[in-house]
């Protein structure tokens, strides 16, 4: 079976660039400290901005007072009244103000902006602005929001609902041998990129607004500033600077902070830098949506899922932002990698008076897949079969129809992935050994599995709406430069897109460059999200490169050219005809049908598939859980860069381990209380197990050279695999994460006989 481990020292293949671990394009700047992040930039005359934020959860602003002890004439002060255009952060529903006017709807909501040339004076000035409120009742949980005793958003506190219906689920209950119910919850999670959010803005009456910033989606910021300033497209320029981690956390929030800095720049006439400190970044910006999933599943006595109902609810915070899209992905992934002959999925995103939750790697899928992979264990216990066997009997396969009735056409074999992952983990031997050893001592060990999938690219009709455009430019020196708004923030965009072009054109990797994302230079290749860059943008870049070569061949370049001949043709073309740029625009593949109303059809062009196995040890003296070994096996199509691909998996698994075991956002009245790295704990080098990564390549026709999306997949599996392993070690179900030592203590204190069937076994009709 073609399963291969990854080593750091892959020998470069002489014939191919794709599939080899070429050096990261911007790597040398990163290891020497020369890479320029936004906080490393200083513009002449630049001053510094700060944000005055709401101290309450919900209320009306009655008065704003300025401490007479502060020399306010030295400060630039901006309020909502200074906004020239629409006071909204334009995104989807445009419900979020850039600066609160009359009301606030969550703690830390921005109300007023200050700037000064001396950044040391800003904290005291922020404290010197006091805001008098008339407080209004607020809601803080999904349940309170659903009760609708207070309406805090729209008419029913609901941002978005989806209903997926496949077949007639109401007819299935009478046929069931077992009906298995469960409720599963996940907590908020902070992205915790090590570089905080930050931008520099410049405003010029003639040229408009320019932004340099740490961000994922230059054209999102561009769109937001157009409407905030009421400017034409050419008067807003957004440039991405080197970005020190993002993970979704710099998908939508940069539009807010860029708006703030630009307003201060307009009012002051000077460039303005706003870089958050860690506490502000943690308490005021987006996090992963907390979730609650309820399953009710009809199962036959031989362990087959006959059908079921899934209720998936996420807490979106105070404004709609991206919640509808996060909800969509969570909804479509809620059934996991299993065959549901009939299913009804009801999904909703509700409002609470907390800062808006947002994009974070996985984007709804880690939440609903946690529930699915816990629930499948529960089904196994009720039926009395091993969870391995239950999974095997219900796995999707080529030709299966998903919950949205998408027929899977690509080759896939989840059973084979499962076998290979169990083998690599030493699962069977350890399971027997741990069962024996756990009878003694204070250290209990367990093995847990998660099987899952992740769809690559925008959902359904999303890619058609994005209508992405990419360019490839042949330059006067004979080199080739890629023009995309797809950004690098560690995952390897620069490197892999350059590999694709080098391979396509038969040129050395060193001859390919990628332009810094700057909306005046690069076309809109869509946002850098949704595991879409390599698969969707990579394929477009490949076609643009083919177009470039065709143009040169039309001009006389021999089809059998050498790289030197290609470069010479490129130089000659530019000399005689001017710029040589070829573009490619997304075209929907034939046969793709998606119904946005019924939420039915081809949800994603391709899915990646995975089986992860966690080995945990629980210390019954401290109640600390540690992960001792972790196997991550996935099928992601062709692996274009083994080292980068492995890095995506290990990094995602580490974040998933944090999601399960360490990273707990402590809320009080909608505010995060532990907004420091001291008390919000992410995994350190001492906390993580060996993360052993394996890829299987089964072939895929959708992406460049057969690649599928990879970036988000590894976030989905670790939490359920770990919860399943803890259950095996301790015999108590772990249906809510994060699970900290105190939670383990609680679970054991309430230890009851495990997993009595929700309904007694019945005879099939």
């Amino acid at each position, binding site marked *: 079976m073609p399963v291969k481990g990854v080593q*750091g*020292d892959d020998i470069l293949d002489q014939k191919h660039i794709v599939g080899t*671990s070429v*050096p*990261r394009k*911007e*790597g*040398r*700047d*990163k*290891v*020497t*400290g020369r*890479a*320029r*992040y936004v*906080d*490393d930039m200083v513009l002449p005359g630049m001053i510094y901005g700060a944000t005055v934020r709401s101290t309450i959860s919900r209320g009306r602003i009655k008065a704003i007072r300025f401490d007479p002890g502060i020399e306010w004439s030295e400060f630039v002060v901006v309020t909502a009244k200074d906004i020239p255009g629409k006071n909204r952060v334009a995104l989807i529903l445009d419900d979020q103000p850039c600066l609160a006017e009359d009301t606030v709807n969550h703690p830390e909501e921005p109300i007023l902006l200050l700037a000064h040339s*001396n*950044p*040391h*004076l800003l*904290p*005291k000035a922020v404290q010197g602005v006091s805001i008098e409120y008339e407080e209004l009742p607020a809601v803080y949980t999904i349940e309170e929001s659903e009760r609708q005793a207070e309406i805090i958003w729209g008419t029913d506190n609901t941002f978005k609902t989806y209903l997926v219906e496949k077949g007639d689920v109401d007819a299935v209950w009478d046929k069931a041998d077992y009906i298995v119910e469960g409720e599963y919850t996940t907590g908020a999670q902070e992205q*915790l*990129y*090590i*570089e*905080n959010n930050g931008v520099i803005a410049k405003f010029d009456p003639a040229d408009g607004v320019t932004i340099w910033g740490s961000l994922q989606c230059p054209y999102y910021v561009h769109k937001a500033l157009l409407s905030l300033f009421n400017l034409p497209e050419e008067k807003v320029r957004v440039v991405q600077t*080197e*970005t*020190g*981690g*993002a*993970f979704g956390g710099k998908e939508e929030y940069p539009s807010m902070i860029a708006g703030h800095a630009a307003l201060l720049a307009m009012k002051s006439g000077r460039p303005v830098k706003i870089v958050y*400190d*860690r506490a502000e970044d943690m308490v005021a910006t987006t996090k992963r949506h907390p979730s609650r999933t309820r399953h009710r599943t009809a199962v036959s006595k031989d362990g087959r899922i006959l059908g079921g109902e899934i209720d998936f609810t996420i807490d979106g915070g105070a404004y709609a932002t991206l919640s509808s899209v996060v909800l969509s992905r969570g909804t479509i992934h809620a059934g996991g990698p299993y065959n549901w002959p009939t299913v009804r999925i009801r999904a909703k995103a509700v409002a609470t008076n907390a800062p808006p939750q947002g994009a974070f790697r996985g984007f709804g899928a880690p939440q609903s897949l946690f529930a699915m992979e816990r629930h499948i264990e529960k089904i196994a216990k009720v039926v009395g079969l091993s969870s391995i066997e239950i999974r095997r009997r219900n796995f999707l396969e080529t030709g299966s129809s998903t919950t949205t009735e998408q027929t899977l056409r690509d080759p896939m074999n989840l059973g084979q992935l499962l076998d290979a992952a169990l083998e690599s983990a030493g699962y069977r031997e350890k399971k027997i050994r741990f069962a024996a050893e756990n009878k003694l001592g204070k250290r209990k060990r367990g093995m847990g599995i998660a099987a899952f999938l992740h769809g690559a690219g925008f959902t359904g009709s999303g890619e058609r709406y994005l209508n992405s455009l990419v360019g490839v430019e042949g330059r006067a020196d004979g080199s080739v430069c890629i023009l995309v708004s797809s950004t690098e923030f*560690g*995952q*390897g965009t620069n490197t892999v897109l350059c590999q694709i072009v080098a391979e396509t054109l038969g040129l050395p990797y060193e001859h390919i460059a990628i332009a810094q994302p700057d909306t005046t230079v690069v076309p809109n290749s869509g946002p850098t999200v949704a595991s879409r860059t390599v698969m969707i943008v990579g394929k477009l870049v490949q076609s643009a490169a083919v177009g470039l070569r065709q143009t040169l061949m039309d001009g006389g370049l021999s089809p059998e050219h050498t790289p030197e001949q290609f470069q010479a043709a490129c130089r000659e073309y530019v000399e005689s005809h001017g710029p040589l740029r070829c573009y490619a625009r997304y075209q929907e593949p034939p046969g793709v049908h998606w119904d946005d109303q019924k939420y039915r059809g081809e949800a994603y062009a391709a899915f990646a598939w995975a089986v992860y196995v966690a080995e945990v040890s629980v210390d019954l003296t401290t109640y600390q859980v540690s992960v001792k070994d972790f196997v991550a096996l996935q099928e992601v199509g062709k692996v274009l860069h083994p*080292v*980068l691909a*492995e*890095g995506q998996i*290990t*990094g*995602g*698994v*580490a*974040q998933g381990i944090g999601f399960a075991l360490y990273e707990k956002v402590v809320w009080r009245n909608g505010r995060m209380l532990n907004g*420091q*790295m*001291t008390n919000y704990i*992410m995994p*350190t*080098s*001492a906390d*993580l197990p*060996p*993360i052993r990564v394996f890829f299987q390549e089964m072939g895929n026709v959708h992406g460049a050279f057969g690649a599928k999306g990879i970036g988000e997949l590894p976030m989905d599996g670790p939490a359920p695999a770990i919860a399943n392993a803890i259950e095996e070690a301790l015999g108590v179900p772990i249906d809510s994460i994060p699970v900290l030592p105190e939670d383990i203590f609680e679970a054991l204190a309430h230890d009851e006989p495990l997993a009595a069937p929700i309904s007694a076994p019945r005879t099939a009709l």
Partner: protein
Amino acid sequence: MGKPSAQRREIAFVVNGEPTTVTAFPMERLLDVLRRDLGLTGAKEGCGEGECGSCSVLMDGALVNSCLVPVAQAAGVNIVTIEGLAANSSLHVLQETFLAYGAAQCGICTPGMILAASHLLDKTPSPTLANIREALAGNLCRCTGYMQIFRAVAEAARRRAAP
């Protein structure tokens, strides 16, 4: 980060081999002086409270979080930042292995991580995996899951040991 009290004064130290004098408030953070006054922006601020290690530099061979060091304490010491790790335009062996093994992703923790690793290799030329894990535990990386970093450090130790 309140306004530093007292008067500015001259403070002399050696940075990356260069004798340097800065005029600064004594309680200003070494990190700010390096970045703002000396243009050495390789040290990054990740948390400002000594948790993340992105601002790590070497002071007389000791690994410190420069966000926690008042510049007054730097008087007379020898400071090495990422910009001074390699001689001339070549790469330090750790820089080479970080590049080759995918140990730098977004790169924001990388300068501090490399300095922490270099501190380890100076003290423990042939570290075990446990030594590496412990030595880097004060430097947070959100991208890699650390696995590639461990390999890069181990490989750098091997290369340094090779004749």
